[in-house]
């Protein structure tokens, strides 16, 4: 056989799992992102006392498909003097960065595209931060003054909060001791506790910073509809806009995955080492079965027959899922499947909870003004993150060198960090009070009427 062909076959033989995983991610994630949009609309409707999309498909479940078709068949409009290469490139960069970052994330102990990268977490953060090129180039390519300003503002916001997010992750990494994703989760299993309980302030900072990273409310001024400019996405229509949007939701998944890996125990169940909590292992199968039972119960109450059938279908799918999750637990020869399946279940559950929190905050909180946003990032989050890193470091030294109890050390340092946070906020209030009393919006001689005449 030709040596090159042989080499290629050997390559495929060794790496086929990873290649297939990669293809699965690229194929499935946009679909999942589309359904995340639907979930957001339904959640928004639920919190706003209305129903959300109901017409397209049963309970609006085919809405993302309809939206995708609509966006694909829209006319492709490119502004007059826009730079065609960069205009085409920008949404692609945005989406590619998010998908590539997903390559290094372990969705369970067995599903990971790029296995055992030594710098796994750093890779995810670094590559997902390449998405901001999509924003800044997109704004520039639109050849509109407002798009450029919106893009620059968005980029400035992203860069500022990346710093805070990175520092918050450093606190978690101090506890983990490695950047390897697999090893981080193993460290949490070894310690028997999720890192969020050891460094809660770091987790909180990361949550806030990641909301700003993904341009979600309350930090979505650059893309808000009621502002004067619609931001960098103004001139994008049709599928280009869809790529941006999907990139944003894929970014949400990436950010949720990083938080789940580092702080929420990755694919570990709650209380991973506690033996008498082993009944939690049955939870995935039981909860899926419970959802199935609920669907069966609701199936009888549906007004239309097609909806009843659909509910039955969903129920069957739930029961099938419950079987897949539950049977390997019970049958010894299949037990090797358990870590993979259950790990994936817990991981996806954590990401879903994280994204649910994002959406919940979007519907509840008003929007920050841009200067308030930057102020929050630079004056409050970054100093707090730095203090947190120091505190966690001190706690670790206390534990290893001076033999303190781990929990005691961590609680002590959390209290110190919270005290620092209070101090920062007090400082902030004083600064604001001084600013507002000293200088009410600067008024030139109020007799000057710029438009008089």
């Amino acid at each position: 056989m030709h040596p090159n062909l042989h080499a290629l076959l050997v390559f495929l033989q060794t790496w086929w799992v990873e290649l297939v995983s990669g293809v699965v991610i690229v194929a499935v994630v946009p679909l999942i992102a589309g359904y995340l949009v639907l979930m957001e609309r339904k959640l928004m409707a639920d919190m706003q006392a209305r129903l959300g999309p109901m017409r397209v498909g049963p309970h609006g479940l085919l809405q993302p498909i309809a939206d995708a078709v609509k966006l694909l068949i829209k006319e492709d409009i490119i502004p007059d003097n826009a730079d065609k290469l960069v205009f085409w490139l920008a949404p692609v960069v945005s989406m590619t960065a998010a998908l590539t970052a997903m390559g290094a994330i372990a969705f369970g102990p067995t599903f990971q595209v790029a296995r055992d990268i030594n710098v796994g977490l750093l890779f995810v953060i670094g590559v997902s931060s390449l998405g901001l090129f999509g924003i800044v180039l997109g704004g520039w390519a639109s050849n509109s003054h407002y798009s450029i300003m919106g893009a620059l503002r968005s980029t400035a916001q992203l860069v500022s909060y990346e710093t805070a997010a990175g520092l918050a992750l450093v606190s978690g990494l101090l506890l983990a001791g490695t950047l390897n994703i697999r090893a981080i989760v193993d460290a949490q299993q070894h310690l028997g506790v999720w890192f969020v309980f050891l460094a809660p302030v770091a987790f909180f900072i990361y949550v806030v910073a990641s909301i700003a990273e993904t341009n979600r409310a309350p930090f979505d001024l650059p893309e808000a509809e009621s502002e004067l400019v619609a931001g960098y996405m103004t001139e994008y229509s049709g599928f280009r806009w869809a790529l941006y949007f999907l990139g944003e939701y894929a970014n949400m998944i990436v950010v949720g995955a990083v938080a789940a890996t580092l702080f929420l125990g990755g694919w570990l169940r709650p209380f991973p080492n506690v033996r008498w909590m082993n009944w939690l292992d049955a939870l995935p199968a039981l909860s899926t079965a419970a959802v199935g039972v609920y669907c069966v119960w609701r199936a009888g109450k549906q007004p239309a027959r097609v909806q009843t059938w659909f509910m039955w279908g969903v129920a069957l799918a739930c029961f099938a899922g419950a079987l897949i999750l539950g049977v390997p637990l019970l049958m010894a020869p299949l037990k090797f499947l358990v870590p993979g399946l259950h790990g994936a279940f817990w991981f996806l559950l954590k990401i879903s909870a994280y994204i649910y929190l994002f959406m919940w905050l979007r519907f509840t909180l008003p929007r920050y003004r841009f200067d308030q946003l930057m102020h929050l990032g630079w004056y409050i989050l970054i100093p707090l993150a730095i203090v947190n890193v120091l505190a966690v470091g001190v706690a670790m030294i206390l534990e290893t060198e001076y033999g303190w109890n781990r929990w005691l050390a961590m609680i002590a340092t959390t209290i110190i960090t919270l005290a620092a946070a209070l101090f920062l906020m007090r400082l902030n209030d004083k600064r604001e009070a001084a600013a507002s009393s000293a200088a009410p919006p600067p008024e030139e001689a109020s007799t000057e009427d710029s438009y008089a005449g």
Partner: protein
Amino acid sequence: MLDKAIFFFFAGVAILSAGLMVTRRNAIHSAVFLITTLLATAGIFLQLRAEFIFIAQIILYVGGIMVLFIFVIMLVRLDVALHQIQFSRQKWVALFVTLALAAEVGVMLWSSRKVPGQGFLLPNAVPAAKLLPNTEELAGRLFDGYLLPFEIASVLLLVAMVGAVVMAKKRT
């Protein structure tokens, strides 16, 4: 064999992007091609099993410095520069210097191919199992042996940052 293919792919992309970068008239296009050059270089680092430098290249160079470049390009009025003819008189000097350097490198490569086991085109990679984890190794050296240069570098960066803030404040 696969190593060769990957290396030539990255190297080709790097050289092509570098060439495109210096020949574009549009500054943003130049920046985009510089980004691809840097990414290709990072790929070569990765192939050499230098993972930390690979990711540091991406985070710092591409994610930091290139963003800065693009900001500057966007905020500075470039329509003036676009209409000026740049470096017209130095084209030939540049070409001569490039050819001279290329000849030098070529001679070097050619003469070294005779040395067994130490060719430039196919580095003998240390088997992966023998390599210590990149980040830990680097951190160990940096904080243990080379602590003073590290601190000096960080003080330098701090001074630069403070200076930038002071200069910006003075403007407003």
